[in-house]
Structure formats: C-alpha cells, structure tokens
C-alpha cells in the first residue's frame, strides 16, 4: 500500500480590500492507498479550502495557492498544467459537496448529467454513456434508475440527489474521493443511509477517501486516520483509535469534551472559551494559545511544529515537544520558526 496523496506545507491565501486571510497556513498530511482519512474542525478552519486546493479550484481572484507541494501518485499537482489538472478532475480525483440540493444543474436531466461526465473522461458514445450512467444510478441503490435518469433534479429529494452525486463522482473510478461534509445538509436518517452507501462503494471500488466533516460520529464510523484542523493548520493527526482513546492537543480535547457522553449525565456541556481567531490577524505563537488553559511561555512566542508525540500520533503543541526553538527537525525537513523569512517555499509554476 503506497502513498496516494502527500501534502506538504500547503499555503492558500485570500486577498480582499487590503487584508490577507491565511486560510491554509502550512498544512501537511498524507493519505495511503485504500485509506479513509478524516479531516475535522470547526467551520472556517480551512477544511474545505484544503479540498478545493487539491483540485486547484480556488477562485483566483480572490484566492491563491502561495506555497507547498501536493504529490498525487508522485506528481506535484501544483506544478501540473491546467489541462493536466482538468483531466484528473472527476476522473482520478473526484469531489462531493455539501449541498446536494444545489449541486446539480437544474435544467438538465439526471441521467444526462452523469452520462456527460462519463463521456468526458471515457470518450464513450452517447448511448453507451447513458447506459453506464443508468447502471451507476442503480449501483447507488436509486430505485427505478431508468425512470429517475429522465427526471430533473428538482423532482428528487435531498438524499436522492446526494446519491446521484455519489454515482456521478464514482462513475469514473477515481483513486481519491474527496467528500466535503456529504451528510451535513441531510436529515439524520438519510445521513446514515448515505454513509452506508459511501462505505459500500469504498469497499467495492477500493477508493481512498478524504472525508471532511465536523461530525465526530461520522469520523468514528468511517475513518482510518484523522487530522484535526484549527485556524488553517493541522494541530493533531493519528489513527482513529489512538485519537479517540487519548487526544493530545488541548483543542482536540476540548472538541471531544463537548460531546455529551451516552453513559453519564452531564448538566453543562463543556465549551471551549473564546472564539476562532481572525485569519487575517493571527496571534503570534500557537494559534490556539489565547483559548488554551494549558498555555505557558513558549506558546505565546513561537508556533509549535507538528511532532510525533507518541508512535503514529502527531501533535502540534509545546506540551509534547522540546521547548527549544532551534534546530528542531521533523519528518518534513526543518520547520521555520515563526516570524523568520527563511522558509522553503515551493513556487507555483505554470
């Protein structure tokens, strides 16, 4: 099982009326083949921006990928030409979005929309593409697939539309499926069905999945590895078992603590005090320190690197690392101390 996706120091900024919002501030993680990788965090932490950056769908203006490397099957996506990236979208890397109600084109029939994607990437004729489309719709358990193929999106429910999206995006057997909050906008009962469908498809097609969500239950259900994001960076990364058993980062602990336990009674839900920082005016040092009850001196001065706190469990927090800020190496090379400009930045070509 090799590495499918390797993201190193990804930086994506947004520019508007003089402000620079650092949506992604040095994000790094890897996804193995056949792995389901969860990306968790609050709204605005950069999960969706990460997904869009991988496919280079960041609207420019106002956004721009300013640094980092995205290695997919060994090739740096950020160095690829527009044409090369386009040929991969929908074919090798597919994406499902959060809002099934508006993600389908209202003026084209369902079958047509799926068939068009098949035709684009597989070059099959009209009739053959439509046939495959209908097969795909049946595969995702849409009843009367042929009939549904002739309908328009507004005639289907949210759950059905999401199934259509899944069919569309898996129709060309992508190696990586990015699912950005696929169940958030759906009813709870439908959520379970969709997750089950995703699991089934993954098992059958051996697809790797980058699952973006803020729902820890979903993570527990489907994921092998999890990364927790906060204000544009990854603060903790580990296998699902390890991270649920013992979260290391204070933020993660706070998130976990906010889940009401099933077996006890709790009168007050624990909240993390404070609020997410403004991404255009980040605090110096660790981004989480203003809200952290464990902060001490180094936290306010320098940003902690992502360090392997225990085997297979990475965390970005001074509680687990050597307090010295000089010469710390980690697996991705030397991490620039906050405030210095001697960073290795990979420029975007093309």
């Amino acid at each position, binding site marked *: 099982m090799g590495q499918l996706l390797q993201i190193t120091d990804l930086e994506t900024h947004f520019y508007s009326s003089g402000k620079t919002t650092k949506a992604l501030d040095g994000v790094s993680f890897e996804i193995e083949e056949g792995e389901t990788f969860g990306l968790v965090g609050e709204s605005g932490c950069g999960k969706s921006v990460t997904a869009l950056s991988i*496919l280079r*769908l960041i609207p420019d203006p106002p956004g721009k990928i300013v640094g980092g490397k995205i290695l997919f099957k060994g090739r740096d996506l950020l160095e690829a030409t527009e044409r090369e990236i*386009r*040929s*991969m*979208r*929908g*074919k090798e890397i*597919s*994406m499902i*979005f959060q*809002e099934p109600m*508006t*993600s*389908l*084109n*209202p*003026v*084209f029939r369902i079958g047509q929309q799926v068939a068009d*994607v098949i035709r*684009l*990437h597989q070059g099959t004729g009209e009739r053959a593409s439509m046939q495959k489309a209908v097969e795909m719709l049946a595969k995702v358990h849409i009843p009367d697939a042929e009939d549904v193929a002739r*309908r*328009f999106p*507004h*005639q289907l429910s949210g759950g059905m539309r999401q199934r259509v*999206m899944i069919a*569309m*995006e898996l129709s060309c057997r992508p190696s990586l499926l990015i699912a950005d909050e696929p169940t958030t906008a759906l009813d709870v009962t439908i959520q379970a069905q969709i997750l089950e469908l995703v699991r089934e498809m993954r098992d059958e097609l051996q697809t790797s999945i980058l699952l973006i969500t803020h729902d820890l239950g979903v993570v527990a259900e489907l994921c092998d590895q999890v990364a927790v994001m906060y204000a544009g960076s990854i603060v903790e990364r580990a296998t699902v078992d390890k991270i649920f058993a013992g979260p290391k980062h204070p933020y993660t602990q706070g998130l976990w603590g906010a889940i009401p336990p099933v077996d006890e009674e709790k009168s007050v839900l624990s909240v993390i005090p404070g609020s997410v920082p403004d991404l255009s005016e980040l605090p110096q040092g660790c981004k989480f320190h203003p809200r952290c009850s464990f902060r001490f001196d180094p936290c306010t001065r320098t940003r902690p690197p992502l360090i392997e706190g225990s085997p297979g469990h990475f965390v970005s927090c001074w509680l687990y690392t050597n307090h010295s800020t000089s010469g710390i190496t980690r697996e991705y090379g030397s991490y620039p101390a906050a405030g210095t400009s001697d960073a290795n930045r990979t420029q975007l070509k093309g």
Partner: protein
Amino acid sequence: MTRYIARRIVMLLPVLFGVSLISFALLHMVPGDPVTLLAGDQADQAFIQNLKKEYGLDKPLHVQYYQFISHVIRCDFGTSIRSHQPVAKLLRERFVFTAQLAFLSIIIAAFIGLIAGVISATRRYSIFDNLSMVGSLFGISMPIFWLALLLMLVFSVSLGWFPAGGKGTLKHLVLPAIALGASSSAVIARMTRASMLEVIRQDYIRTARANGFREIIVISKHALKNAMIPVITVFGLEFGYMLGGAVLTETVFSLPGLGRLMVDGIFQRDYPVVQGAMLLVATTFVVVNLITDIAYSFVDPRIRYE
C-alpha cells in the same frame, strides 16, 4: 404545464376586458358629445343619423359596449373620420410595417445584448466589461428620439448613407432599427450580465468545474441555459414594446407605424382610429407577453414539470 398555461390565459381575460373597456370608453371620456366628435365637420343630418345607428349612440352604454365588441370581433373598427377609410385597413397596413421593423430591431438587440452581456459577465472587471457597462448605461439613459435624431444627423444628413425617412426599401429600416435595437440591447445586456453573474456563482457550476469540464464548456453549456431563463422575459417585453411603443422613433423617421397612427389620430381627433390603435396595441402586447410566459415555462424544467 398545461395548468400553468391555462392559468395564464385565464388571468389574461380580465385584462383584455379592461383594455377593451378603456378603448370603448375613450369616446365618452373625452369632453364633448360623442356624436359631434364622430361626425367631425360633417353637418349632414342623414350622415349623423347613420352614425347614431351604427354606433348605437342613442342606446344605453352597455348596449353600445356590446355593439363595439361585436364589431371588433368581426374586425370592424369603424371608419376613420379623416380619411374615410376603414380603420381596420389602416391598422393592418401599419401593423405589418411595425412588425417588420420590430423583428429587425429585436434581432439587432439580441445579437449585441446577449454577446455583450455574456462576455461582460465572464470577463468581469476587464476593459470590455467596463466599456460595455458604460455603454449600456448610455443606452438606457439616452432618450431614444435623441438617439434617432443623432443617427439621422450622422448617417443620413452628413454621410448620406441612408434615407432620412419614409418607407419602401430595407434601407429605410436600417437607421430606425439601429435606434430601437441599440436602446433595447442596453437593457438586454444588463439583464444578461446580471443573470450570468448570478448563475456562475451557483454550486452546480462548481460541480461542473470539479468534474473537469473546460471553462468554455462550463460557460456555454452549463451556465448559459440557466442564465437565459430570466432574459426571455426581458426579450418579450422589449419586443412588445417595439410593436407599440416605438412611437418616438417612428416620428423622427416619419415611418408609417402603429404608434404614429395613434398620435396622428389624437391630433386629428380621429377617435375611431385612436380606439382601434389602442385596442390593437394593447392586445398585441398582452399576447406577446403570454407567448413569452409560455416559452419561459418550456425552458425552465422546474415549471414544465411541477
């Protein structure tokens, strides 16, 4: 969808009734005795008696209205006081001319407006966008009779490329069509741009890009069809306007159109003509809007398959 069309037609009927009522009542709302008004300068008693009989002027109003309507249905709009010709004949001739001009104008308007609007939306903030927005601002702010005069000044009087008025050949229609077309194209361009911008923001466009379609396909196939839906309504309105509201252009270029017929009728106190023109123009406009609504329901599947 048949329900949608049927509903639209049902809503039409009271409007048509109201329009016919207003046209009919015109004669009675204008100060003066209807008989004298219709007789004009004819003092011949026999003629006046005939008039009374034909228009039922000595009968109660609702009977008169009924007579009016029954005549109209048989395409009898009475006789022009001035020219003594059947009003129906005058209306037909003028309508044909106006329709020709309107067709030519709407084609020009559609061509310029749609292209400018789409390019503006897809190349936002570019020089083209700024120019076309300024251009369309001028287009909607310019009084059309002034534009017509300017066109006449430059292309007719100074350069002599086109005739300054009258009818006959295609050449006579060019300048007025440009005036009407340019004016409408500004409206269409603005609407198209706004609609396109709105559509490009939608999630399904993001889906199309994420699936790997080329940008030009995303715009011309995925976006355009959606963006055109509201533009259809504008189209219908502009075309309808050209059929009846082009009075000003017709006046500048001395064209034998419906609008000018109406205005001349007012000046000449030729009430049968005024009534007929009112009725025809309003009815045509209403019908054009109905057709536009039906077209709309065809193009938007959300209405077609409720």
